[in-house]
């Protein structure tokens, strides 16, 4: 399991869009990888005891009409939001993301009783596997990575609906088998024609897969049911490629039925930004240019690129992180109150923010990119980016990026938003720090307030999800001395263990058709419009700076803030 497979570049890239800093790149040893799919029988059911011949019991899917389930009631809040009859098809099911995040998330959902009775999971990949082999791989993934304890009966319930389709993406036979499997599941498990297709594959395979889905009639939802596509970042590498990707996917799936996963948006703290701002009276009055001095949004990783060289080189930190995660966090922090908590209203407000973003005029002075150099990190000696295996020693790819943005509206005019991200920084942390102006007048003399910093509200997205408020307080003693103290709210303390994994939430939302937490294609395109000029500038000017691994970034980034008379927080 730990041997790194020598694989063609395509497979290597399959592990590219890895969701979390902690995710590495091992894969199950792919011995039988390229085995021919033709020798395979059409997908047989995973031996459910009393499975009838699929065609006999085809249940007509009744039109939705206005039927209301009398057993459900909005005031009955114990009954969980269970997804309706549905199934999930995962392409690239042998990849890292699928094993470490998706399959455990599916199990955790089942364990919490949030999946419908006949829920089915179909894997599609280039492996010569039977259904049982697939079940075994899922079993191992679940055992190792699931959040909730393993329970035999839940597992039993899940395995009955597991199918595996071996094949390549341009293999028509395989897609035929997939269609058969989907129909068989509708009949034997009552999935009702509702399927989500999760494309956990490198973006270059997207066109192939969606076209195959279209060609075999899998993207076309039968009357009264749905077909959805789930895609992962990267959503292109610039505006043009993002538009091209959207065109390809929307050609097959209705834009409303395309779910783009940004797993940060599934995190509790990120959703809590909205609760914090709009459910409380305390914060909103000071959430504007009169009180806020500037905002720092940081996503730091302590790992290097690991085995992701093939994916990472040429992409870089800004495209990998700022374009999606950080701009989304910024939009949530800066947006006006949405008229309702639904996908459309949220999109409207987030788009307004993204559209009013103003880039600094002198990009050289207000953006920084850098690469990590050899150094010591947390007690281990680590190589520099240019020394990593598979990286061109002349590479200009950024592993650290910091940019300054303004938002041109009444609320935020003149308040800079500093976004930074990097690999091999001090520690793994993601946070949003809203830093306030100093009190306009202080009755205390300057020695008393010497140690007093600026007030700040820090939203910690990960790890140790929570929020910190920093303010000044008198030091006990006879003299008047004021020093910074912090007040802390931690999810781990107030709601222990109840925070589900981001992927659990997001997969459930896909099955429920709830698009609140998914960026829409307009947002993706607007984000590229912000980043493209910066990337162009970087391409044309100079080389990335270097910073020692294990530090908080290059000197240039400190200088960038010093120019504005500010400094970075140490997260």
């Amino acid at each position, binding site marked *: 399991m730990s041997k790194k497979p020598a694989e063609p570049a395509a497979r290597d890239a399959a592990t590219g869009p890895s969701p979390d800093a902690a995710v590495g790149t091992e894969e199950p040893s792919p011995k039988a990888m390229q085995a021919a799919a033709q020798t395979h029988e059409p997908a047989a059911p995973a031996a*459910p005891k*009393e*499975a*009838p011949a699929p065609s006999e*019991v085809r*249940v007509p899917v*009744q039109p939705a009409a206005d*039927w209301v*389930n*009398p*057993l*459900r*009631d909005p*005031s*009955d*809040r*114990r*009954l*969980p939001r*269970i997804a*309706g*009859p549905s199934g999930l098809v995962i392409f690239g099911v042998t990849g890292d993301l699928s094993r470490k995040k998706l399959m455990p998330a599916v199990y955790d959902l*089942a*364990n919490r*009783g949030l999946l*419908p*009775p*006949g829920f089915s999971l179909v894997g599609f990949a280039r492996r010569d596997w039977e259904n049982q082999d697939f079940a075994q791989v899922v079993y191992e993934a679940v055992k190792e990575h699931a959040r909730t304890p393993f*329970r*035999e*009966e*839940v597992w*039993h*319930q899940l395995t*009955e609906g597991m199918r595996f389709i071996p094949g390549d993406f341009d293999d028509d036979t395989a897609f035929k088998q997939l269609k058969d499997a989907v129909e068989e599941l509708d009949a*034997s*498990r*009552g999935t*009702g024609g509702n399927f989500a297709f999760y494309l956990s594959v490198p973006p270059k395979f997207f066109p192939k897969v969606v076209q195959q889905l279209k060609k075999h009639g899998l993207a076309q939802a039968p009357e009264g049911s749905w077909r959805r596509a789930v895609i992962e970042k990267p959503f292109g590498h610039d505006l043009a490629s993002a538009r091209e990707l959207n065109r390809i996917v929307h050609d097959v799936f209705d834009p409303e039925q395309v779910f783009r996963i940004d797993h940060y948006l599934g995190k509790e703290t990120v959703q809590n930004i909205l609760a914090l701002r709009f459910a409380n009276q305390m914060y909103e009055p000071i959430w504007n240019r009169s009180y806020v001095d500037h905002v720092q949004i940081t996503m730091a990783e302590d790992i290097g690129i690991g085995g992701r060289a093939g994916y990472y080189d040429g992409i870089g930190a800004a495209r990998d992180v700022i374009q999606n995660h950080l701009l989304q966090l910024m939009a949530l922090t800066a947006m006006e109150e949405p008229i309702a908590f639904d996908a459309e209203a949220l999109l409207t407000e987030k788009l307004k923010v993204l559209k009013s973003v103003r880039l600094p005029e002198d990009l050289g002075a207000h953006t920084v990119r850098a690469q990590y150099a050899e150094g010591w990190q947390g007690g281990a000696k680590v190589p520099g980016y240019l020394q990593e295996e598979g990286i061109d020693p002349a590479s200009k790819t950024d592993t650290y990026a910091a940019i300054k943005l303004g938002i041109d509206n009444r609320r935020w005019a003149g308040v800079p938003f500093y976004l930074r991200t990097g690999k091999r920084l001090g520690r793994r942390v993601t946070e949003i720090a809203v830093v306030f102006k100093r009190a306009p007048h202080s009755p205390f003399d300057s020695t008393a307030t010497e140690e007093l910093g600026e007030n700040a509200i820090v939203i910690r997205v990960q790890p140790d999800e929570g929020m910190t408020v920093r303010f000044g307080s008198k030091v006990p003693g006879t003299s008047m001395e004021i020093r910074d103290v912090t007040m802390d*709210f*931690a999810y781990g*303390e*107030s*709601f*222990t*263990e*109840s925070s589900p994994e981001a992927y659990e939430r997001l997969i459930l939302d896909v099955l429920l058709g709830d698009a609140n937490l998914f960026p829409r294609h307009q947002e993706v395109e607007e984000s590229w419009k912000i980043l493209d000029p910066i990337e162009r500038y970087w391409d044309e000017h100079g080389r990335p700076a270097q910073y020692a691994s294990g530090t908080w970034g290059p000197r240039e980034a400190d200088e960038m803030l010093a120019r504005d008379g500010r400094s970075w927080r140490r997260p």
Partner: protein
Amino acid sequence: MKIALTDTTASKINKALVQGRRAIGTPAVGMVLTLVIVTDEENAYDSIKAAQDASREHPSRTLVVIKRHARTLRDRTHSRLDAEVRVGSEAGTGETVVLRTYGEVSDHADSVVLPLLLPDAPVVVWWPVEAPDNPAADPLGALAQRRITDLYAFERPLEVLQTRARNYAPGDTDLAWTRLTLWRSMLAAALDQARVEVTSAAVEAEPDNPSAELLARWLQARLGVTVDRVPSQGPFVTTVRLSTATGDIVVDRPAGPLATLTLPGQPSRTLALKVRPTSELIAEELRRLDADEMYAVALRGEPIKETV
């Protein structure tokens, strides 16, 4: 750590709590509620254990009120309060105070509990056994937003259920109802899938099972049909059958954690439907602290008109 206090008062207990927290190095923790457990010595151990397991999801201050029965006249006249303060690893993620009341103070336990409630946080009272007939009117019950009783702890649960229905006040809830959540969500999901009108229903369960009665009443109220109660061997609720024009929807759990779901015209499939331990039931109860209107509907068991 544990601090034992003999013949004490609420203010001394408060001091011991602060002292205990200081000693283990966490002077302030974010506790979300106060859970008051009213029980006897016999059931105290299990109840505290369940509460501590539940506290992993809901860090709370747990106050355990144990009324000691006096054996001699002298004990009966002499009133005394003993306390045991547990913080840190002894008390799950929150803190626990075990209060033992002797003599007259037993009738005024609320005066001990009131000063020990967390400021500004909701209060939940749980009677694992011997719940009062009218929980909301009980002096301790009156302090709480939510009052948890357990019909399983009574010899004649169905009679008590009638009393509960008569005395229902918003905030009341019962573990016999909590035990049904998995059943109810499965039935709702099954009906989501079948999308047909139910014409009659039956609940099979061991005789005198209060959960089965609540389930039957809930189905009666929501579906507007009569529900047959069919005795079976148990354990607890074994089968629910919803009859429709196209056939029966059946959830069948003869034993063990696996149930079978049958929908008309579809092959049957298995579902995980386990009997949950008390700690999970309590954790579910603590998740929502507002009134459970659906419990009230199930208690009454009468078909209601849609109000909206």
